[in-house]
């Protein structure tokens, strides 16, 4: 087991190097630091001096990948590639283009993100499974047909309309909770509406997906055996089918677990919650390339962690699968 995990971690390294190269190419080769400086300074204020100063303040005035002027090992280390990309492997994100410490900002902002993301994930998973089981229990009846149609309808509504509708109805018309904002001391009041909307907007896709999983299970032989030996349909469904259907559901859910850190982009931005999602959006809005670069790297690390966790969780929930 430990051997396997170590090997998987080892496999992840070339992928992370690839991600690093892609971000490096995107951020420093497609457009040189000079281009970024000109963009940031605006057309009016561009002078060669101001461009140099902008680059100097952010450490972008070094050669891209090879420094011929430096001595010894510094030929490679005293470059933009080494300073701004390779350092990401050690989770040293450096300073944002506005001068703030990105590592500190991330450690502060991940908590509000988690406060939203974890309840949305848990409640969403439970309610989707419940609805899917109900629809599967009444399969090929009108409840099933209309349930699926309802799911498709719910799927077809853009996530932004769930947010706008929820804010309008609950925040503005009913005045139950504040429309937006966040306060660490009074979390529940501010988090309940975004969590609710996060859960509701995922019901359509989730229920439909889990329904197909359950229906696939129901076709299998062991279900027929269970029915043949006289078990009531409810027991077949809730004991046998649910247990076996949970394997693909749980392993599918594990992949996204680490990514919960990243928060939800539009939900946090609409509700003004100071999490990592709105951090990313603000960085995109103010064209802060250093933050976007860090978040791209962080996101891919978390995704790879999720993949490894998925493989491990397979062995835990499904004894047929052995890792070698």
């Amino acid at each position, binding site marked *: 087991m430990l051997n396997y995990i170590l090997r998987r971690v080892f496999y992840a390294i*070339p*992928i992370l190097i*690839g*991600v690093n190269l*892609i*971000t490096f190419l*995107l*951020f420093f080769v*497609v*457009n040189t630091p000079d*281009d*970024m400086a*000109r*963009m940031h300074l605006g057309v009016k204020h561009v002078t060669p001096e101001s461009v140099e100063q902008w680059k100097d303040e952010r450490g972008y005035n070094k050669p891209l990948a090879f420094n011929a002027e430096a001595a010894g090992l510094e030929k490679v280390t005293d470059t933009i590639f080494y300073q701004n990309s390779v350092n990401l492997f050690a989770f040293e994100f450096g300073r944002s283009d506005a001068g703030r410490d990105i590592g500190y900002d991330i450690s502060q902002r991940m908590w509000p993100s988690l406060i939203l993301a974890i309840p949305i994930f848990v409640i969403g998973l439970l309610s989707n499974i419940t609805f899917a089981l109900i629809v599967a229990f009444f399969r090929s009846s009108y409840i099933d047909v209309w349930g699926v149609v309802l799911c*498709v*309808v719910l*799927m*077809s*509504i*853009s*996530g*932004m*309309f769930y947010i*706008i509708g929820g*804010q*309008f109805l609950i925040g*503005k018309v009913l005045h139950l909770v504040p429309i937006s904002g966040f306060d660490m001391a009074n979390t529940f009041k501010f988090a309940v509406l975004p969590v609710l909307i996060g859960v509701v907007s995922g019901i359509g896709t989730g229920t439909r997906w889990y329904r197909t999983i359950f229906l696939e299970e129901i076709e299998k032989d062991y279900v027929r055996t269970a029915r043949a030996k006289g078990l009531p349909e409810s027991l077949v469904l809730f004991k046998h089918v649910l247990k076996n259907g949970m394997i693909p559901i749980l392993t599918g859910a594990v992949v996204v677990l680490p*990514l919960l850190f*990243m928060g939800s*982009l*539009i939900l946090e*931005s*609409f509700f003004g919650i100071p999490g990592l999602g709105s951090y*990313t*959006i603000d960085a*995109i*809005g103010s*064209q802060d*390339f250093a933050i*976007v*670069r860090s*978040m*791209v790297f962080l*996101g*891919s690390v978390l*995704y*790879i962690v999720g*993949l490894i966790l998925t493989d491990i969780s397979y062995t835990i929930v499904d004894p047929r699968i052995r890792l070698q």
Partner: protein
Amino acid sequence: MSVKLLLRHPLISSLPIALVVIWAIGIFASGAQSVFLWTDVLVYILVLTICVFALISSSREHLRDPWRQIVQHKLGMLSLVVLLVYVLIGLLDSVHFRLPLVVENATAEQKTVHEGEVLSVLDLLVTPIRIQEEKTYSAPFATHLHTTETIERPDGSRERTYPRLEYGGAHLENPRTDKYSDIAMNSVLGVLVGLIIWSAIVLMVLFILAMQKQANVSAIAKMILSGSSLVPWRLILATVGFMCLLLGLMIILGPKYHILGTDKVGQDVLFQSLKSIRTGLVIGTLSTLIMLPFAVLLGIMAGYFRGWMDDVIQYLYTTLNSIPGILLIAASVLMIQVYMANNPQMFESDAERADARLFFLCVILGITSWTGLCRLLRGEALKIRTVDFVQASQAFGVSNFKIIWRHIQPNVMHIILIAVVLDFSGLVLAEAVLSYIGVGVDPTMHSWGNMINGARLEMARDPIVWWSLLAAFIFMFALVLAANLFSDAVRDAFDPRLRKQ
């Protein structure tokens, strides 16, 4: 190609013909200068591809049979009608030109001068709602502005009041009393116009069907009315009727009122929604069109050749896949923005710049979304290469290229088709989110994302400005719902696992 074959696909084959005819009439009648935007060219290529695909599948039984099933699928056909209406509007909006500048007593040289603004056929068709701009917000069917203004009376006194709209309900003398009866009268007229258009279409369909089946028209009409036709014509024609009613109301009420209100700068919201259709469709289809060659080629190659090629391609898509999609898109779009800001000389007009950005967005969305299909195709190719008929061909010394073309490609066609249709609605929804984040289409381009973005800030207003949101919601919802329902029908018909049941 025989006439019979053409008649068999009246809808598919008439689309490009209609496009060419409209384009030709538009150009020659007005002396306009045609403009080909990048995405226009791609849209034409896409239409051509679909036609070729339709012709190919009409001669192959294994492709024709699923289509026969779709054509008989009620919900599928209903959504197809809705989709086709959207596609028609999108195509009308994809024929661009510059009108000649109107100069009195023009010399020969001046006659060749054209206006700077790039227009489309759709722009011309909806001219009244395009040019009737108010000062600022006004509610649907309003006759007065949504905000108060200080007006100076003739006697010198000042008063804060809601001023009359310049165009909306301007024909009414006394809007407070006449408005509702006028709207009702015009609605009746609009319904009548819709009914006339509808009956023309119904008659056309009846005659084509009668010609095809060599039966008389009344027998066909009876069959459709009773709902016993194999293709659910009754439902299709009812949907077409509903669309015609909307069209009729739009034709009559559109020039007199702002049916969906006006936005902050006074532009008609209905016009914006109609213009946004092309943006949504282009993103939903072109992104897939751009990524398809890569995904198909790389996926089949990885699965068929295995070895180092498989390793390289797998590494490539795992790496791309591990970057969260929205962040990769955001990073790429930011970089394109920087590039475009530093190279403004590349684009002649604002429309071309906005279009170039739309094109790049499609490319970026394509690059980030090919991995899923590639992985599916690799797995399928891995399976097929071990099947007996492929092994036999290899033993006979058939070249790899021929095996891929003759044996692998036909066997993965259904996967490609299902993936294309399934991706569409997701891409349309993604456009709105990306535009909201600020990495979507150009802010000057009409799109549902930009409409939502603009209207979102007005939520805090009192009384609330809701019509932009409602319009974007309805137009988007209808398109995505139709696409989702249609893709379900396509999947049911083409997926061999589902077909058996």
